[in-house]
């Protein structure tokens, strides 16, 4: 591990470039938060405090942090269902994210969405989406509305739409990229390529496994970046977002990373070879980045441990907050079905008569 780390550090001649030390420490702290939060989520799932499906960002921390370092507060973010880390990086209170996993009223979506459906309108986290690729057409539509309402330029908002490698095979991906290319929309599509769609490799699923090339049909430039390199991810995303804002040029960004564990918390990933698992573990961006920072003299072990300890307390507190929060009241079951109240809206519970007897 140590030898591998040194080799990587040596390859990146310019590390850390002109990024200030406190910003780099901040990235480490963010990666540590996601790592710790996700490990705790896995534990909470095992303890049955979290139900349903639960997909973790373990191994994708550099990708998440790099992307979220590039995005502006006013930009709209759409993600797939592997969304916890993005919610944390949009500065949502970890307690509210954990409360959503626990299905509590204090959760970011009021306990109605769960792991796959984190949403915060203020933070412009415009949703985790549980249906593969369901987010791509609406994200494209937000970009259409931005184009209609705002002038192109550095001040313009933009959209970042995340998707997985497997998602590039669905029709909505191609239809949406065509619309974005045709209409010059301010959107960056980001393929988080963790090399596996559930248990299926990219090569087994995609006739063109170089996924970034798939933008070519729509005159959308595609760029592939090492998703384990937080600075490379950040820089590529900043450049792509700038083009979206100023040129109305959609961009397709492909970030290569590894999923450290199975598809979801219940998946032991037996389809993965020992060799692949070893590669994924050696690429684990959290210890690699920590070692890089220590090698560069930006952190030492004690300072890194102090950050980890601070994060551990934050995640502890998030669990306490989730535990202490109230469950939704069944009396509010129909609260959000319609925005505009409507005559004869159904309100029968199972076993209720469909209407009052006349």
């Amino acid at each position, binding site marked *: 591990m140590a030898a591998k780390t040194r080799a990587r550090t040596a390859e990146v001649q310019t590390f850390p470039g002109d990024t200030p030390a406190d910003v780099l420490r901040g990235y480490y702290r963010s990666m540590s938060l996601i790592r710790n939060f996700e490990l705790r989520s896995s534990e909470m799932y095992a303890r049955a405090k979290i139900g349903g499906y639960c997909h973790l960002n373990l191994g994708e921390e550099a990708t998440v942090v790099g992307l979220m370092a590039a995005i502006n507060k006013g930009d*709209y973010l759409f993600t797939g269902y592997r969304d916890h880390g993005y919610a944390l990086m949009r500065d949502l209170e970890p307690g509210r994210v954990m409360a959503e996993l626990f299905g509590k009223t204090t*959760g*970011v*979506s*009021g*306990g*109605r*969405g769960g792991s796959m*459906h984190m*949403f*915060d*309108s203020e933070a412009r986290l*415009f*949703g985790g*989406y549980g*249906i593969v690729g*369901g987010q*791509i*057409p*609406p*994200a*494209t*539509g*937000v*970009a*259409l*509305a*931005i184009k*209609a309402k705002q002038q192109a330029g550095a001040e313009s908002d933009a959209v970042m739409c995340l998707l997985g490698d497997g998602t590039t095979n669905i*029709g*909505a991906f191609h*239809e*949406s990229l*065509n*619309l974005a290319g*045709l209409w010059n929309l301010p959107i960056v599509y980001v393929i988080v390529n963790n090399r596996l769609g559930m248990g299926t490799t990219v090569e087994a699923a995609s006739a063109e496994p170089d996924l970034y090339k798939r933008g070519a049909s729509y005159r959308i430039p595609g760029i592939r970046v090492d998703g384990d390199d937080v600075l490379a991810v950040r820089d590529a995303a900043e450049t792509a977002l700038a083009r979206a804002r100023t040129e109305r040029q959609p961009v397709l960004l492909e970030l290569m990373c590894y999923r450290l564990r199975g598809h979801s918390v219940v998946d032991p990933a037996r389809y993965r070879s020992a060799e692949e698992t070893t590669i994924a573990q050696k690429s684990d961006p959290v210890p690699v980045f920590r070692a890089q920072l220590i090698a560069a003299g930006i952190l030492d072990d004690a300072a890194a441990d102090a950050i980890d300890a601070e994060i551990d307390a934050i995640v502890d507190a998030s669990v306490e907050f989730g535990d202490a929060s109230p469950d939704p009241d069944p009396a509010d079951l129909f*609260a*959000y*079905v*319609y*925005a*505009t109240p*409507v*005559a*004869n*809206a*159904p309100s029968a519970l199972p076993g209720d*008569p*469909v*209407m009052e*007897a*006349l």
Partner: protein
Amino acid sequence: MSIEAAPVTDPPATRVITYRQALNETLRAELLHDDNVFLIGEEIGVFEGSYKITAGLLTEFGPDRVVDAPIAEEGFVGAALGAAMIGMRPVVEIMTINFSLIAIDQIVNHAAKMRSMFGGQVSVPMVIRMPGGGGQQLAATHSQNLEVWFAHIPGLKVLAPSTPADAKALLTAAIRDDDPVIFIENLSLYSSKGEVPDGEQIAEIGKAAVVKEGTDLTIVSYSRGTTTALEVAHKLEAEGLSIEVVDLRSLRPLDRETICASVRKTGHAVVFEDDWLSYGIGAEISATIGEGVFDFLDAPVRRVAAAEVPLPYAKTLELAALPHAAELAKVVREVLNIAPVNSAPLEK
């Protein structure tokens, strides 16, 4: 509903116009009323709409307000949904209801669920207009009445106007509503005419209407079916039968109270629907009547619906498969247990 109780104002002037013209004028009025309204769909601009509902609107409002989309129903329906999430008010035209199946993930899994699933933080003020209906020899894939697919889904509102006046008032209501509204039109209604009040008219969503009063039997219908129901009701009036017609107007929410109040009065009910019989709109109406006013029923509720077959092209087969006035009149008589009067038969 007494006329005496109405406030003393001059009723709005009316004009006799087609259903198509009512839709066109309403779209124009709403584009003028709110800058956030825009139209999007295939062939709605340069081509002025497959059925010319959007004629003249591209010329008047330009390509940012009347957006010609490529053939990509999932893509542009979903894009309209996204625009609605940040406050635009898209009115989507899907060329026919048959193509809505290509967009159904965006409609059912996304538009309908956004508000609930995200804890009320976002609303989706969008309208999806689309015509259904058979009888034009368009064969199996282009002749469907799939409204029940959408009427089944919580979070959607589903409207199906039968007259030009309702087309105007319900479309206005739909565009100003903050929820996703599925607006069902019908190919055979586009050229139908009716009196339409001038000025702004906004219907209340979720309400059925008694469009003809009667005492012997209630026909419940919607969209094109209501025009046939009225035709049959008037025809049977000459035979001394007093038929009430309830026009559903809104398939979701469903105005069960108006349906049941009518059947409580008449004691007999027939549902006339263009969709297939099993699991159709009529099944829901029948169950509602059975549960709501069982004690007032003098006969079982009957449904007159389409034969359960992919609709063939050949005219003889198409006529055999679709429900018409003749079958409706036959079933009305059967429910009332009376023999047909020897009069001119109703046309197929």
